[in-house]
């Protein structure tokens, strides 16, 4: 391509969309995990659900402003083209936005909603329905319903890139898996970051779940990224040349230093180090807020760089 058509707006959208999917995924998981007869991680479920709609809202706005005519975005929703991943993705995003907003509402503290509703002017009194006591009962069904939709939002961006035969850097199903695991991992990381920055800090049980989850996701990401590279290097010439963009080509430093080392390897090491009392079963587990925050920031940074590399390198790659 003479000049890349998709730029930073798309990079950030891919990151933010994945982030929302990851947040909802962790929140939905936490909604269902029980200890005894009660929920095991009520705070994770709540904070995750309260945060989930907003990165995507920002990302969708970026996406709309990247269009030639931003106001024509509605045209995505008057048709459905099942062979276009972007059409599928637009509908997934719409469904996911609805589910995350409902879930956000169902998790709002009663005192907050009560306060808002009491201050409503007379004309808007009908909005008192927002304070309906039954909204809490929506939490579990919404988590169940949103689970596959969140996974869909996490993976479709990778499918969208992978579905382009003209760009050998993208044209493999592994891109979808990399994006999915990265999305889930960044969701975990943002929760770690937010909770570790709160005055109360990260609870040991929460940290244990989030770190375990994130370690598993990062390891999964490794085991998709490495086959992606190996497979690419053993593919027909056009794919080998495309992989060359990160193996000595212009995206090598971004991929290996910024993404692979700083965004994947280092946070994995930090999180394993944090978890060593659990892994070695020696001492009691006291998560360090500083280390947790640093590893979370690194995971988020890696998520952005990953999308940067794929969006820009993919557009450069082509058949000769």
């Amino acid at each position, binding site marked *: *391509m*003479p000049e890349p*058509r*998709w730029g930073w707006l798309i990079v950030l959208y891919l990151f933010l969309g994945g982030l929302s999917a990851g947040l909802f995924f962790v929140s939905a998981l936490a909604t269902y995990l029980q200890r005894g007869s009660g929920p095991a991680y009520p705070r994770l479920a709540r904070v995750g659900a309260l945060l989930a709609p907003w990165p995507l809202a920002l990302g969708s706005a970026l996406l709309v402003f*990247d*269009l*030639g*005519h931003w106001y*024509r*975005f509605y*045209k*995505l929703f008057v*048709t459905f*083209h099942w*062979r*276009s*991943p*972007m*059409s599928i993705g*637009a509908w997934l995003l719409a469904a996911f936005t609805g589910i995350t907003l409902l879930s956000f509402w169902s998790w709002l503290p009663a005192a907050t909603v009560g306060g808002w509703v009491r201050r409503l002017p007379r004309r808007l009194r009908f909005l008192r329905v927002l304070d309906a006591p039954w909204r809490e009962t929506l939490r579990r069904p919404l988590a169940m319903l949103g689970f596959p939709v969140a996974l869909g939002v996490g993976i479709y961006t990778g499918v*969208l890139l992978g*579905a*382009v*035969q*003209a*760009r050998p850097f993208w044209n493999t199903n592994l891109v979808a898996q990399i994006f999915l695991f990265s999305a889930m991992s960044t969701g975990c990381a943002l929760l770690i970051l937010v909770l570790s920055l709160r005055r109360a800090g990260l609870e040991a049980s929460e940290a244990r779940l989030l770190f375990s989850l994130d370690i598993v996701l990062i390891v999964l990401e490794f085991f998709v990224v490495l086959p992606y590279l190996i497979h690419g290097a053993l593919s*027909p010439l*056009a794919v080998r040349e495309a992989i060359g963009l990160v193996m000595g080509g212009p995206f090598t430093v971004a991929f290996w230093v910024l993404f692979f080392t700083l965004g994947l390897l280092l946070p994995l090491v930090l999180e394993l180090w944090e978890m060593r009392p659990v892994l070695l079963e020696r001492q009691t587990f006291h998560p360090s807020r500083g280390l947790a925050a640093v590893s979370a920031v690194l995971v988020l940074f890696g998520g952005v760089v990953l999308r940067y590399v794929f969006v820009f390198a993919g*557009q450069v790659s*082509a*058949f000769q």
Partner: protein
Amino acid sequence: MRERLGIKGKPRWALAIDARKCINCKACIVACKAENGVPLGKFRNRINEEHGGSYPHLRASFEPEQCHHCASPSCVRVCPTGASYQRDDGLVLVHANDCIGCGYCIIACPYDARYFNPETRVVDKCTMCVHRVDAGREPACAETCPSRVRLFGDLHDGEGSLRHTLDSRRSQVKKEQTGNHPQLYYLL
């Protein structure tokens, strides 16, 4: 061809290109821009240049290229709104009013044949001069070429010159491996 396209009795427009005749005068580019009002800095067709060898044994080859009006166009497949479409006669076109300007088709085209039109803010491309073709004329690029590099015609017309040329001379298409079934035939 007819079976693969699943069309009977209708024309299937295509171009054959005899690149060895090209002298790189760029008249086709100028004609295209004038005919279609293509914005400054944007092009619907181009001439790929290749130079090689070492003095005094040199070579230069020129190869015109534009939209291949593929039989399985990936740009049409990925379009989320249906703005990119293909007519029964094979021409790949864009409904400018339905295009949201997302750029997915620009990226999905293996031939980099599409561009973002900064004036209309939607995607634009070679239309094979559909307005001329529908009026029974050939595209501006084919008509203007002084060395008759381009041969425009109907693949379904057994008596036509395009069918005759492609039947009697060897030809190849570009980047067939992307599966788009391109219909820009380069004569060998």
